[in-house]
């Protein structure tokens, strides 16, 4: 009885969370087009979220391409299909692995960062102080961050994809004596607009989700230092889940519109 009550309570809490998140997103869209625009803060956030994440995304992407090619090589060699490696790796990275892995890394780094930063501001009543001082904290803190993640994540994904393909090309060059020119020719032979466009479009949604959930969790942080940790942690968990849901919807829609 207690368990079922617990489930009901949790389910109710989940739907309330979804409702609050939706309202939070609605407020974002309501405020985003209204002056004043915090452009300097947006640039600052873009720098922090874009440039500062590039190294992590680059290293991860490089290793991803390297490992992916090394692991796939023996299986393809069994079928005598090593020549298919560039097209296989290219399509996999551009369509799915590159965007999802980069988004998950950014969810860990940026989402948790936003959650913790805004959470600690809420806990230390800095947000309340901003409201009292006449500054709109939602515009200054939330909109700039969500905009920054939305704009920076596609660029990070592009860099991540390129570096992952470079890692794969290095392995192919060393192991299979495939020149870089031939490798990238085969990659671009295999990749089509129907691979790049849905991946790029969904990366905007990934960025939006990371910023939205991170800001929501931090902005609505409960009192106390424990609340900051919880906000940071739950921001990563919820964002990761949301990323996969968005990915599923994106693949589903891409299948309908592009017949992938």
């Amino acid at each position, binding site marked *: 009885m207690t368990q079922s009550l617990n489930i009901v309570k949790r389910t109710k809490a989940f739907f309330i969370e979804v409702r609050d998140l939706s309202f939070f997103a609605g407020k974002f869209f309501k405020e985003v087009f209204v002056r004043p625009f915090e452009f300097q803060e947006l640039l600052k956030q873009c720098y922090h979220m874009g440039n500062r994440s590039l190294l992590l995304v680059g290293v991860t992407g490089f290793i991803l391409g390297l490992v992916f090619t090394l692991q796939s090589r023996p299986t393809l060699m069994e079928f005598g299909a090593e020549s298919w490696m560039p097209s296989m790796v290219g399509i996999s990275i551009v369509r799915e692995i590159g965007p999802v892995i980069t988004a998950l890394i950014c969810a860990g780094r940026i989402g948790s960062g936003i959650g913790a930063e805004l959470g600690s501001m809420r806990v230390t009543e800095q947000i309340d102080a901003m409201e009292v001082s006449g500054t709109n904290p939602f515009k200054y803190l939330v909109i700039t961050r969500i905009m920054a993640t939305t704009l920076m994540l596609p*660029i990070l994904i592009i860099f991540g994809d390129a570096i992952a393909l470079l890692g794969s090309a290095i392995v192919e060059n060393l192991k299979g004596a495939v020149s870089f020119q031939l490798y990238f020719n085969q990659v671009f032979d295999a990749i*089509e607009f129907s691979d790049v466009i849905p991946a790029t479009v969904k990366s905007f949604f990934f960025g939006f989700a990371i910023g939205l959930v991170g800001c929501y969790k931090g902005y609505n942080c409960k009192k106390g230092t424990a609340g900051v940790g919880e906000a940071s942690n739950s921001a990563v968990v919820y964002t990761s889940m949301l990323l996969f849901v968005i990915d599923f919807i994106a693949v589903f829609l891409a299948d309908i519109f592009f017949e992938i």
Partner: protein
Amino acid sequence: MVTIKKTASRKLKLGVFVVFGTLLLITALYSIGNRQNLFGSNIKVITKFKNVNGLELGNNVRYSGINIGTVSKIQMIDDAQIIVEMIVKQSVGRYIKKDAVATISSDGLVGNMIVNIVPKESKAPPVVSGDTIQSYRKIGADDMLTTLNVTNENAALLTADLLKITTKITNGKGALGLLINDSVMARDLRLTIHELRKTSTEASKTMKEFNKIIKSIHQNENVAGVLLSDSLSGQKMKTIIDNLERSSIGIDEVTKNLNSIIKDIKNEEGTLNYLINDRDLVKNIDSTLNNIKEGTDKFNQNMEALKHNFLFRRYFKKNKNKSEQ
């Protein structure tokens, strides 16, 4: 001041980051578009197939093994005709003649389907945008599988027959079964093979000897070699043989004539026949010849006597002097 510098530096770094990221995306999109012939001038070439074998939009079009375009449209116009529209680079399009033939084939064993445009060595004019070229249907995987299925069925029948035959052989039925199962025959066969081996050894020796002879002929060590290798001797030999042939013909004619003469002599009553066949005449002739001989001797004696006679001595002496002068 430091904060302003820091902010300016951050803005620059952010700008570089965004520009490079955007450039990467644009380059990728341009490369993809370029490969799909979206940029640059293209021409449209159309062909018709009965079966497109799984050809899809965006599949490559090849001309003489070079990727020159992509399939842009596949449309069924009736129950037996499918129109395939291809976008081809204009720079290559001018080499495609109006009588070129399009076929659908697979790029590798498990690769994508491609349209192959095969050129013809003719002086037909090049295609222009919107031209329709003829198509040719190659044997597809389905046809191959059908053939393979028939082959498989035949193989199954053959296997069944082979099984029957081997069963009979194992049971000693038929000539082959007897051959395999009969121990006496096997022994005879072994002996035969042994003899055959001996024969072949002897044959080998003979061949070696024969080879030696041939070799010696080639090396001009004997008459045959000289005749075979020296063209002058060969010519002489030919002349001799020609002469011999002519002589033999002459001898033959002479023999024929002699035969007819002998025949005549035997059959007719001529002097020679009489001389040959009459023995008394032969005797008479013989005695006559003896008498003549005796007479001649006596005449010689008389002539000698005349030389010494005083009446004729002077005459003979005069003749002798004349002959000495």
